[in-house]
């Protein structure tokens, strides 16, 4: 469904991503892992339109037909037309807005389309009322899915860290994505929260869309991924199922620093 081929991203003299090719299949959880500075987030930023890649193609094909050349689309179109949603390594919620409002902002485009250029809805006409009811219904569903219904009217910034992580995922799901990109969703979660997150991600995979995730927590990666891509210094060093990757000597070398200049085990 997502095919990345020959992706290169250069920042001045630095090649953050170097001729990377991989594929994320439909209905899979694909994990991108690698040591710090391997270029994982850069790949994400290229896919979601925050960076424009120096070279290469990122092609997304929808299960219902239609293909999108993501490297050519402006950032907001990648979310609204190609339906690629993302979360951020350091949570970016609308802290001063309520949990419910966060979920409604994510449905901006369908709701906006129902307002009749804003004029009809301002005077209370048109089909906005129905659209808003549908939007609230979807928000309610996701509130329930992440267990935050009771806190729907609290500001997002006041939620505990784990709940903020879940809310960010729910917010991304509200754009009805076909591919959800998660940048270190388990960072900073305790084991129980981490387990809840696994369940949520598996549910999203089974019922909604494919996932692409960057993760440091090997527990999460090995347990839920269907397919793992390992990066080091911007290059792909391994690609396969969790079992294959775990056994790959190149991966072990990259993670344990074997044969590298510093001999400190990671």
């Amino acid at each position, binding site marked *: 469904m997502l095919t990345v081929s020959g992706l290169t991203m250069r920042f001045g003299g630095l090649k953050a991503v170097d001729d990377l090719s991989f594929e994320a299949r439909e209905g899979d959880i694909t994990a991108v892992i690698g040591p710090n500075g391997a270029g994982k987030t850069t790949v994400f930023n290229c896919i979601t339109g925050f960076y424009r890649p120096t070279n290469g193609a990122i092609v997304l094909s929808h299960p219902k037909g239609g293909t999108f050349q993501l490297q050519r689309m402006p950032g907001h179109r990648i979310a609204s037309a190609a339906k690629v949603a993302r979360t951020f390594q350091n949570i970016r*919620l609308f*802290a001063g807005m309520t949990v419910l*409002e966060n979920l409604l902002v994510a449905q*901006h485009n369908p709701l*906006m389309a129902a307002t009749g250029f804003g004029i009809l809805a301002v005077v209370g006409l048109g089909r906005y009322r129905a659209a808003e009811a549908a939007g609230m219904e979807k928000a309610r569903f996701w509130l329930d899915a992440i267990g935050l*219904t009771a806190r729907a*009217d609290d500001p997002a910034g006041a939620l505990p860290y784990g709940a903020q992580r879940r809310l960010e995922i729910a917010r991304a799901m509200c754009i009805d994505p076909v591919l959800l990109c998660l940048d270190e969703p388990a960072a900073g979660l305790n084991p129980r929260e981490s387990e809840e997150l696994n369940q949520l991600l598996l549910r999203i995979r089974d019922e909604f869309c494919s996932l692409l995730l960057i993760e440091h927590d090997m527990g999460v990666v090995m347990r839920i991924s269907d397919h793992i891509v390992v990066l080091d210094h911007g290059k792909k060093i391994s690609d396969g199922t969790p079992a294959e990757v775990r056994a790959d000597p190149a991966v072990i070398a990259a993670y344990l620093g074997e044969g590298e200049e510093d001999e400190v085990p990671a």
Partner: protein
Amino acid sequence: MTALRDAFLSALVALGLFAPLVGLVTTSGDHGLTLTARPIATAVVVGLVFFGRLLTLSWRGRSRREATAANRAFAERITRAGKYITPVLLSAAIALPLTGSRYYIDLGTLVLTYIMLGWGLNIVVGLAGLLDLGYVAFYAVGAYSYALLATTFGLGFWVCLPLAGILAACWGVMLGFPVLRLRGDYLAIVTLAFGEIIRIVLNNWVSLTNGPNGISGIPRPTLFGLAFSMDGGPGTFGDFFNIEPQVIQRIIFLYYVILGLALLTNWVSLRLRRLPLGRAWEALREDEVACRSLGINVRNTKLTAFGIGALFGGFAGAFFATRQAFISPESFTFMESATVLAIVVLGGLGSQLGVALAAIVMIGGLEALRDFLSFLGDQMDSPVFAGIASELPQYRVLIFGLALVVMMVLRPRGLVSGRTPSVALTKVKEIAPDLVAEGRG
């Protein structure tokens, strides 16, 4: 003890500063200019600094938490009171012309103009978080649009009002384009420059705008075609209702026009806040990157904020032109932008009630202070105050400025600083200001 020493030092600095500034005054006597000393005035100012410093030090002595708690309690009280303040203010506004006093109605019209401008700017600064220091440009565009359309093509006020608004909105979008990528200080500087450019163009494009001489003879609005002219001829207000034409009728009519326009601004902004567009503005203020990741077109959203903010500025400008019947570029200086921005900031970014209160305090309060000070001056007939008593009203802006500084120290996020959510599942709960972003463009 340290507090005393600190206050003493402050007073010393104040003495050094104000001895020449306040203590000496030039008067033109028989032999040209002479220098007169004003020891009492200087002593008063230095004394104020001394005690003011002592007061702030003792206030700062309180624990920080205590201060925050007091602040929070005050915010909650004002929010709860807001339910009652709004209808009281509204009925007072509707009933004001019943006083029949031209002074109060004129003052009310002025305050309402600023409330409307404040609400318009609130869309740009308060909701979308785009700092705009050139809002007066749209006020000017609205005023000149109406003035030129009316004097050149003989169009009436009610036809020109939407046109003036639309033209101002177009200029808002035009300003929006170059500043899309700018944030914070840079955005402020460019918008400031935009305001100045408009004023300078109006000043120098003599063939169109008549330059610094301004445009006079701008027609007054009519009530469904009934003019408010003093001759009482056929088709005028006085003739139609068979009453003696009086100037006050027109004044009252203008007052209700601006009241209606201001309420329209308020209604539209309140409505928009609950619609996806308004929520997108607020989301933009909170986090632009997240907005983009959710498929919100940041460019269009910013442009609509500039456009709709400017639209109401244009309406207010058209009203200003018709009320004054004369406009010149002098009325559209940076001072106006600064006043409107001060109203929005003082009121609390994004708060409709706060902006209204702040405009009443800033515009009405300044007038009230003038009255109070001249009254006070009349009471001080002792020779000790000889130099000061008559000049007291001149100090009103100084006193007012100090009051604003104190106010912003005590309530840095404005009078009404919390944010009311636009929608709720069960119950609307006020959001504490420290969670709400102020926006950096």
